[in-house]
């Protein structure tokens, strides 16, 4: 792995030399595909730093002794250390160091909402506003560099086999990271996935232009290389009854995500051309309907598309609609811009690509043509009232403000909740609001003995990094549980 890196040439510091941080400089932009060009393809939009750029950005980092970014990071990556390693040309070491804390750096470097997490906490914001260290881009750089310039394997000595058999349900970020750690701890792991490809939302939800599927497959291959047996096309609760899982394994980790699409229940929602975000995304991403002539799965090519909602999902959908040739692709959101939960960079990219954002507006019904296809959405204007339980100001409809937006495609992206298949088939498993699995937030143990759960399945739709963290912490807890001869010390959920 010893590549010849001339760190002085790249603008970094030699080992032992003192670093002079250039924190006053502006944060280094990442090269992107031009907006006019990229709406005609599915290639990645943000192109990533070159080694020279990564070193330049890393040289802005103060390497604080009391790093606030580290506290803000949900998995507490040792950010100053890995950035320091980049400044000194030790790219592989930096990648290895990140991997101690985060199982999926190539993914998280691309999709984490850093602007609300580590980068929001960066101390440089205090003196050089809006110019925090580009921590996410540097994380991505390390992971990509490591993938490209090594066999992609992370130094991971496997512990001797324990003889315990563990079952992981679901191959999203939470299931994959839990399975990987359990395998390293010496347990025999079977991972079951309902769909025909592993990766969870990373495969079926997040589009290729934001997270190339080749990267997800590399992560999956790595987990396989640790000896985890991944079996697709197995729906636990159907293909494999829950009872067989409970009887056949010493411990179980449920990471079945939040894959059930919420709809609004307004008139006309079942017209043709009205999609749930999950259906639209699954057709395009998992089934690759964007590849006309290759994929067997069809997708409607929208001319005028209305996307309801303003989260990660809504922005992914609106950008896909543009790539499918929509002349008008519009986000309709009931609150104001300030409340939009989507990732900042994605909102910016969507607007560059021509997406229209209509805030303080909410659909009330859909109108169809004589063949049962949607032709317009009737919306209502909203204003913001007092804060609600989420702390955000509650949107209130404005009387007599309805108007029609003509469209031929609508995608409802107002959130997902967990699927009830596993809870309804596992006696004794307690849930909240009918589907969110109840689990102890330290041990990840559920109300059923030997069953643990984490990720979106216990929180509702959240983020990749939180799902990954749950996977890793649960693995540690399950390991302790398995090695404990009494197996009784666990507080229930």
């Amino acid at each position, binding site marked *: 792995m010893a590549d010849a890196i001339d760190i002085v040439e790249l603008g970094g510091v030699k080992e032992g030399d003192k670093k002079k941080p250039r924190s006053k400089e502006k944060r280094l932009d990442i090269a992107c595909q031009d907006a006019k060009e990229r709406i005609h393809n599915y290639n990645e939009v943000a192109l990533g730093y070159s080694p020279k750029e990564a070193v330049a950005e890393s040289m802005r980092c103060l390497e604080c002794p009391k790093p606030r970014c580290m506290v803000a990071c949900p998995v507490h990556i040792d950010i100053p250390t890995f950035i320091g390693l980049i400044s000194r040309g030790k790219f592989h070491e930096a990648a290895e160091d990140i991997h101690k804390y985060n199982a999926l750096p190539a993914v998280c470097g691309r999709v984490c909402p850093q602007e609300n997490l580590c980068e929001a906490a960066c101390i440089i914001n205090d003196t050089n506003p809006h110019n925090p260290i580009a921590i996410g881009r540097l994380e991505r750089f390390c992971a990509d560099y490591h993938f490209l310039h090594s066999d992609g394997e992370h130094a991971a000595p496997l512990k001797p086999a324990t003889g315990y058999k563990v079952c992981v349900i679901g191959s999203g970020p939470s299931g994959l990271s839990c399975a990987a750690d359990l395998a390293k701890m010496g347990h025999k792991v079977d991972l079951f996935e*309902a*769909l*025909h490809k592993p990766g969870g939302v990373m495969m079926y939800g997040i589009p290729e232009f934001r997270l190339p599927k080749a990267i997800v497959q590399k992560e999956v291959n790595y987990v396989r290389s640790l000896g985890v047996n991944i079996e*697709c*096309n*197995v*729906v636990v609760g*159907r*293909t*494999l*009854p829950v009872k067989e899982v409970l009887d056949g394994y010493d411990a179980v980790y449920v990471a079945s995500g939040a*894959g*059930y*699409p919420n*709809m609004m*229940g307004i008139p006309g*929602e*079942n*017209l*043709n*051309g009205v*999609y*749930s975000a*999950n*259906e639209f995304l*699954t*057709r395009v991403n998992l*089934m*690759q309907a964007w*590849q006309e*002539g*290759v*994929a*067997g*799965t*069809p*997708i*409607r090519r929208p001319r005028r598309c209305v996307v309801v909602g303003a989260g990660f999902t809504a922005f992914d959908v609106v950008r896909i609609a543009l790539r499918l040739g929509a002349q008008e692709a519009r986000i309709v959101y009931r609150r104001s811009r300030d409340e939009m939960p989507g990732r900042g960079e994605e909102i910016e990219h969507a607007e560059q690509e021509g997406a229209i954002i209509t805030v303080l507006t909410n659909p009330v019904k859909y109108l169809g043509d004589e*063949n*049962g296809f949607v032709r317009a959405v009737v919306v209502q204007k909203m204003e913001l009232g007092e804060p609600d339980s989420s702390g955000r100001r509650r949107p209130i409809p404005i009387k007599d403000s309805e108007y029609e937006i003509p469209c031929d495609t609508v995608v409802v992206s107002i959130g997902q909740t967990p*699927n*009830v*298949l596993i809870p309804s088939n596992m006696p004794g498993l307690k849930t909240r609001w009918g589907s969110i699995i109840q689990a102890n937030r330290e041990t990840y143990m559920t109300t059923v003995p030997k069953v643990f759960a984490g990720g979106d399945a216990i929180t509702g739709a959240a983020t990749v990094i939180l799902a990954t963290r749950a996977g890793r912490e649960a693995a540690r807890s399950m390991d302790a549980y398995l090695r404990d001869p009494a197996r009784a010390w666990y507080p229930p959920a």
Partner: protein
Amino acid sequence: MYAITSKRTLAKGVIEMTVQAPRVAAHHKPGQFVIVMSDEHGERIPLTIADSDPQKGEITIVFLEVGKTTIQLGEQFNAGDSLFAVVGPLGTPTHVEKFGTVVVIGGGLGVAPIYPICKGLKEAGNRVVAIVGYRSKDLMFWHDRIASVSDEMLVTTDDGSFGEKGLVTDALAKLHDGGAKMDRIIAIGPPVMMRAVSEKTKDWGVSTWVSLNTIMIDGTGMCGGCRVHIGGETKFVCVDGPDFDAHKVDWGEMFARMKGYAKEERMALEADHKCKLAFEALRR
């Protein structure tokens, strides 16, 4: 992965396949279906499990060569080949208990899925009266198998080339008018037939159930593509069904949703056809 162990043509365009899918075969209950992908780029299509053999680890599927994928399966896949994916058994199994006399209606391709249902109902102690309908004699299949799992069987053909001339609904009405006891009616077949049965039985006070065949993708409740109004509420056919109370189904919506991709499907078939013609022209 999922090896095809046999394939035969039952009637023009009607293909029967047995496929290795041990986990599916082990847990299959009447009324359940599988999602099948022919190859890695194929679409995911739902097919009812027409029979299963847990010992051999095999399931039987029967399909009509009508769409892009079923035509591909019919033309290009043979015993010895493998399917890319077979997922199941999906859906809530048909409600089976001792009802008394159950009339089970299968129309056209729907004759295959009623086989495990008749079998299950008979094992539960019901008197099973089967009505199987085909367009004509040369399209008949599996009537012998249905006969083996029913107490009485009526065959109809549209053109009268075998059995009673007419539709399954005619035979059903005749039974009812003759005062035959019926505690439950189950109908599976083309949506027009299921709707016709539903309309017929509406005023009889007999609980009538149909198995809906909407467009699906995942088949696990993840996409909502299969949704339809049942008794004023949106239901996901793949998990809440596929069996529903026929009198509660919003048939108008069901028909409209089935045509959601008619245009795209036609274009794909035409493109395929053109490819094939071009390919043949090249070979010549």
